[in-house]
């Protein structure tokens, strides 16, 4: 195998890992970074997105529209959850963790009862291509591009739109934002819906690549949390670079020793980074800046 195919293989592995880390994490990161809420039901929002995507595709919609439905469905559930649960617990972060954990159990068991232990999947589109002796899935490349697109869209949303400026003002000095006329409750609702929608998007995008079971959220949640813990509270200064670093660790360890070592590598990376940078990468960057 020549150096070019080897390089391509490494790059592909990296892109695959990066996309999974970033897409899993960004919904969680938006909700944690903007609202300080640790959403343990994040995996179930992902599951919701995947299930709705699969259901709508089975009903005859093309996959991209199905993914859109999955995203919107999760965002809508997010609005309800914020309104009925999270809103009442803003002053009590520990209670939020317990409440979202409870929601996650209800959602998993509820899905098991209502839909059954598994749901018919969606075929992976686009097929594959060959480089050297190996074949690669085109859809994985699409996922990588999707991850970059999501980061770019979030950057534009939070920096270039009125909602983004008001949302950042609200996290920085909430009472002052309110005193200037910002409906901070509405901002929190929309932010939570945005995070839930991003989780749904991740579920929809990965629905064609995996078995759909009620506990599928667990597949994402470890990497999502690892990325957010390492990245810290800022999506752009944190999640994106954390996704990059962890993708190198994970793809390197995986191709060296297999899946299990990829996961172990992630955990070791978290322990090291948290020891050195307790507030994550973004906390470090922000401190250096001021």
């Amino acid at each position: 195998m020549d150096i070019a195919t080897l390089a391509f293989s490494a790059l592909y592995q990296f892109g695959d890992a990066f996309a999974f880390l970033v897409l899993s994490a960004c919904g969680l990161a938006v909700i944690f970074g903007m609202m300080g809420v640790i959403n343990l039901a994040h995996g179930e929002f992902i599951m919701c997105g995947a299930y709705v995507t699969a259901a709508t595709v089975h009903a005859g919609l093309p996959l991209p529209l199905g993914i859109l439905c999955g995203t919107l469905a999760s965002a809508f559930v997010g609005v309800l959850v914020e309104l009925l649960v999270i809103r009442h617990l803003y002053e009590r972060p520990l209670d939020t963790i317990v409440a979202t954990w409870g929601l996650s159990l209800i959602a998993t068991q509820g899905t098991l009862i209502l839909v059954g232990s598994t749901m018919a999947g969606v075929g992976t589109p686009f097929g594959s291509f060959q480089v050297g002796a190996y074949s690669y899935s085109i859809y994985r490349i699409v996922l990588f591009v999707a991850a970059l697109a999501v980061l770019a869209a979030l950057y534009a949303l939070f920096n270039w739109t009125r909602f983004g400026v008001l949302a950042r003002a609200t996290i920085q000095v909430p009472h002052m934002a309110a005193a200037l006329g910002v409906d901070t409750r509405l901002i929190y609702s929309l932010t939570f819906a945005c995070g839930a929608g991003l989780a749904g998007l991740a579920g929809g995008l990965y629905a064609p690549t995996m078995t759909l079971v009620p506990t599928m959220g667990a597949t994402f949640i470890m990497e999502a949390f690892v990325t957010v813990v390492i990245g810290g509270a800022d999506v752009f200064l944190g999640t994106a670079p954390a996704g990059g670093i962890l993708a190198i660790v994970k793809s390197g360890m995986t191709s060296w020793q297999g899946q299990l070592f990829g996961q172990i590598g992630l955990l070791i990376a978290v322990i090291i980074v948290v020891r050195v940078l307790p507030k994550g990468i973004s906390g470090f960057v922000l401190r250096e800046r001021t």
Partner: protein
Amino acid sequence: MSGSRRSIWGRRMRKEVILTTVGLRAGYGGKPVLQGLEIEVREGEIVAVIGRNGVGKSTLMKSLIGLVPAMSGSIVYRGEAVEHLPAHKRARLGMGYVPQGRDVFPRLTVGENIAVGAAIKGGGIPEEGRQRVIGAFPILRERWSQRAGTMSGGQQQQLAIGRVLIADPNLILLDEPSEGIQPNIVQDIARNMVELNRRTGVTIILVEQNLDMIRAMAQRAYVMDKGRITASLEREALDDAAEMRRHLAV
């Protein structure tokens, strides 16, 4: 009285009441700081609220804008009872709050801070408003793209004021604008606020300890002690150094 004061600036000869509080009680954690506070402010006035440290001046400002809930009593603003409205709704009725300590959004730029103030009007920063704000505080034009947290106290104070001016408020609540700021900037701010008041008739409630600023701006003053108004001073009394020192003594 100021109520019948002739004004060549306002449309009406007799100014209407813009804000009244009756029996206002408000505080933190169930313990009232304001103990039945009563004030009445007319349109176009600049009224100072003075008093020693910790008597509840900032608490009064916060309860007027809605950041500290009223436990009892009423706040009537332009004929409407507002004591149960959340802060953002009061801001939308035309109250502009400039807090003690300024509270700019540190990681937003100057322009973004002002955009937050302008958002009430629904939309971006109107060019006319931008000219008005940077006309009053030219430093904000220079620092437009700088993060607010990196500016000096005086610059942040001007930003905190500019941030409410952009929305064209009817009533400005100005809490200790001179605190920790160089004297020349204090004078600048006072001059600008008086000029704005003359030109637009905006009403200002000014909490201050700085005698120069009080004299430069206020037409009259309330003296506050232990959560109540204990005296109401007319303009002449503000110039009486001995009396003022007595009220402001720390």
